[in-house]
């Protein structure tokens, strides 16, 4: 998987998005992160691995706690895509609006 695909994959899961939102508050270890969920530490660790592979989370070296830290940079690509889409249509509809005004003016003149 390329970097973008692994980011997409990582973001596809609501639990992982939730974990990212929690890490936005600051670093946390697996136990902290697992606490609010009805799932095992192992399951949460699996989610963290996916986030790590996507470059969205880095983990500290401390063997016991290995705190997780959010790396938000890949999210910029995410936001950029929607923005590109919106901008394309924003520009297009602006141009359409102008075009519609022009032809209506011309019609009036002809009358």
């Amino acid at each position, binding site marked *: 998987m390329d970097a973008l*695909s692994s*980011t*997409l*994959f990582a*973001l*596809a*899961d*609501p639990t992982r*998005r939730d974990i*990212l*939102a929690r890490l*936005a*508050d600051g670093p946390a270890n697996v136990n902290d992160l697992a606490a609010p969920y009805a799932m095992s530490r192992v399951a949460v660790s699996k989610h963290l691995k996916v986030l790590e592979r996507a470059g969205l989370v880095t983990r500290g070296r401390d063997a016991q706690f290995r705190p997780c830290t*959010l790396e*938000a*940079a890949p*999210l*910029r690509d*995410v*936001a950029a*895509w*929607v*923005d590109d*889409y*919106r901008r*394309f*249509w*924003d*520009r*297009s*509809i*602006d*141009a*359409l*609006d*102008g*075009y*519609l*005004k022009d*032809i*209506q003016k011309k019609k009036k003149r002809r009358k």
Partner: protein
Amino acid sequence: MIDIQSSSKEEPIIVMTRTLDAPRELVWAAFTDHVSKWFGGRGFETLACEMDVRPGGKWLHVMRLPNGEEMRMDVVYVEVTKPERLVWQNVDFGKTTKHPASQMTVTLEALGNKTKWKLVARFATMADRELANRIGFAGAIAEGNDKLAELLKTL
């Protein structure tokens, strides 16, 4: 400005709306006949535009982007209900995971001499479903009600 809603986390869609100051028949004509006059907007040059506006008909559109690159759009019409509803989708909708293949539904609602334009972009394949989640995620960011939104601003 377009009003955009991309916050749906359940459905892989983006919804855009805008009210245009023209009667519906005219807006319909602009979407089905005079597309090359406005599609893409400023800085986009239409190199080719072939439209066969009927269900199953194709729309091939080639544009030159402001950066000089060419962009080719290959879509097929799914539904054509004059003058209110136009549905088209990528020729490879549901068949490829390479790019965000999508289905677009344009609805035109007559408001006297004005027209409410609504576009629903729906994404389909597995990869696109992930993409849709990404859209939902970005939507949350756009709404500014997510802690991540604040964080993104600092990047």
